[in-house]
């Protein structure tokens, strides 16, 4: 019962001991919880902080992965390595961690004396995290540097491109820079295709890249290179080059150009005159272009293989008279025009066709555009847009226009394979893959005529290919010589010539086309001359003699084969086929 009154005194609450302790415990628990939350918060915060930190994975602005990225090995058509990656140590420094720069500089220069002292000191001072000292050293140097025991100096393993074939396929392969990126040749083409992308994604590590298979046959390449080197000394030429195509697939079997460079030392590629004369050299092709004229005229039906042409007198164009080099000065049949390489006869053949349709034929053979090819080193040919009378006349025998030897060999491949134009390639390509790419430029009939004409040049007396045939007897090679005079001080010089020999073999069932070029040759001995038959021709013969067995072509000396090439209408007129 409560007494209700006005004056209340505040009540005193007396807690028992248990309640007091209970309150204290509550407070302690709260403090503990706070401490735990703070503790875990700190740990969690630190974890987040650590997760946010980006570790330095770059080396002078490049990802470490890119430095050690590899390139796929390059193989020839038989699986022989033409380019492989080797792991090499590269020397780097961390200036931040170098204690005594002077000591480091003097010690390093005991092993690497070619380093410049001032440059090295400058390189090692400062507080950068990473600087290259020298890249791509040998394991021996790595051991020596490690033995010095300088703090802050270490090695990283890089991939370096190595070309076991040395100079032999230099222009095909090109080279790579110190960062393992292709800078020329097929190496650069590969980069533009896929390798660069792989490296960017950081996937190109380890050696698991699929090898790149080229169409080149290293054995043939070796023989061609060797013969060209031999020719450089034998004829004291300033340059020599050669290319061989498989005419059915357009595969490049061999491609060499001298002077060349060593792809293992990319600096050697910067020397003047080492450019690839097959793809990026354009020359007046000279008489090897007569085959093109014959092909155009025969294909258009403007001339027949048995037609006669008047080559008694030179042809006048205003002030100029065009005459023959070894003039027969008589009436010549078409095969004789080709065999004696008569300029007059060839002009008449072209005129029978008409200069505009002749120009159109050159476009059909793609002589006025770049050849579709993988190598980046290409030049645009210079062929006049339309011909004047005299321009067409000189063009018919290969003067007044410049094309690359690659154009010529591609054209000859089309002439020999039944009239299908196929763009050359450096990658492996089977006949089945090539056939959809064929582009018909000649009737098969014309191709047969041309094969007969080329073979005739080799076997008949007075043919310009007889020197060549001596060496390659039995392999049914045939071709056309070309001796193009060079322009010196605005005039054609008779002493400085560029010689060509364009050929195909074996002509009873053609498989390969080849163009050999020799620049400014001299006579080998007093009995020989400087025309193409003596140098480019004999080189061709020697190459075929060496490579035909490798390519599975058996020699056959039977007259029958050569007789079978002779077209029926020619045989009716000339029973012995000239």
């Amino acid at each position, binding site marked *: 019962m409560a007494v209700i009154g006005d004056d209340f005194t505040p009540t005193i609450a007396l807690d028992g001991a248990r309640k007091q302790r209970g309150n204290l415990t509550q407070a302690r628990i709260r403090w503990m919880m706070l401490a735990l939350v703070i503790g875990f918060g700190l740990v969690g915060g630190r974890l987040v902080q650590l997760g946010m930190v980006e570790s330095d994975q770059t080396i002078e602005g490049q990802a470490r992965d890119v430095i050690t990225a590899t390139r796929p090995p390059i193989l020839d058509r038989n699986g022989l*390595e033409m380019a492989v990656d080797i792991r090499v140590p590269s020397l780097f420094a961390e200036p931040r961690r170098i204690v005594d720069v002077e000591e480091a500089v003097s010690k390093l220069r005991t092993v690497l004396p070619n380093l410049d002292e001032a440059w090295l000191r400058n390189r090692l001072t400062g507080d950068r995290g990473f600087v290259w000292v020298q890249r791509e050293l040998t394991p021996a140097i790595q051991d020596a540097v490690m033995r010095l025991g300088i703090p802050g100096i270490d090695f990283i393993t890089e991939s370096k491109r190595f070309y*076991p074939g040395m100079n*032999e396929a230099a222009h095909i392969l090109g080279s790579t820079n110190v960062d393992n990126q292709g800078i020329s040749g097929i190496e650069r083409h590969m980069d533009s295709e896929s390798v660069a992308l792989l490296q960017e994604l950081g996937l190109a590590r380890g*050696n698991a890249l699929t090898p790149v298979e080229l169409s080149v046959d290293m054995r043939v*390449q070796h*023989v061609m290179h060797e013969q060209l080197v031999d020719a450089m000394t034998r004829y004291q030429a300033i340059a020599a080059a050669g290319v061989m195509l498989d005419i059915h697939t357009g595969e490049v079997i061999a491609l060499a150009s001298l002077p060349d460079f060593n792809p293992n030392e990319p600096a050697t590629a910067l020397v003047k005159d080492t450019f690839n004369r097959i793809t990026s050299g354009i020359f007046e092709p000279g008489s090897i272009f007569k085959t093109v004229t014959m092909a155009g005229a025969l294909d258009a039906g403007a001339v027949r293989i048995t037609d006669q042409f008047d080559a008694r007198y030179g042809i006048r164009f205003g002030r100029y008279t065009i005459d023959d080099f070894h003039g027969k000065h008589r009436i010549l049949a078409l095969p004789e025009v080709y065999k004696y390489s008569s300029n007059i006869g060839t002009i008449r053949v072209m005129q029978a066709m008409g200069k505009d349709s002749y120009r159109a034929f050159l476009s059909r053979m793609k002589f006025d555009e770049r050849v579709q090819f993988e190598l980046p080193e290409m030049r645009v040919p210079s062929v006049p847009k339309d011909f004047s009378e005299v321009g067409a006349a000189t063009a018919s025998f290969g003067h007044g226009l410049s094309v690359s030897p690659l154009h010529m060999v591609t054209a000859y491949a089309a002439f020999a394979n039944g009239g299908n134009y196929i763009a050359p390639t450096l990658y492996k390509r089977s006949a089945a893959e090539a056939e959809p790419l064929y582009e018909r430029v000649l009737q098969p009939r014309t191709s047969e005529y041309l094969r007969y004409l080329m073979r005739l040049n080799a076997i008949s007396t007075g043919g310009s290919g007889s020197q060549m045939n001596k060496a390659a007897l039995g392999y049914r090679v045939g071709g056309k010589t070309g001796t193009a005079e060079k322009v010196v001080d605005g005039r054609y010089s008779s002493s400085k010539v560029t010689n060509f020999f364009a050929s195909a073999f074996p002509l009873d069932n053609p498989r390969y086309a080849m163009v050999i070029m020799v620049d400014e040759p001299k006579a080998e001995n007093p009995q020989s001359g400087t025309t193409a038959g003596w140098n480019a021709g004999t080189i061709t013969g020697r190459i075929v003699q060496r490579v035909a*067995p490798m390519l599975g072509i058996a020699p*056959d*000396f039977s007259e029958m084969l050569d007789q079978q090439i002779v077209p029926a209408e020619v045989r009716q007129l000339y029973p012995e086929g000239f």
Partner: protein
Amino acid sequence: MIRSINIFLICTSVAMLAGVYTLKFSIEGTASERTALSAKISDQEGQLSLLKADWAVLNQPGHVAPIIKRHQAELAVAPVAQAQFGAFADLPMRPARPDTAAMDALFEAIADGIDPIDAILELEGIE
């Protein structure tokens, strides 16, 4: 009761702690082993790449040909000439098979003491 449970829990936690620690150390050991192995692998891959490069050099026609040229005399080798190739057409036809039955008969006759030559000579009237 409570006390015995506590003792049991303390024992298990100590045991678990020991287990966790041994696991931790064994994992660290395995990790360092792995690092050592991968270092060894990359080192050997480097050596392998050099060996492969050597092998490729030794296989190059450009490396083999000069060696052959140097030893041409001792090895008695030369580039193959066209005349050295044969063709199946050049092979002679297989000769007729020997008449085995007749030969057997002859040998048997000789074994029986009949000399066929004698018979011929008698016919010729030489003896």
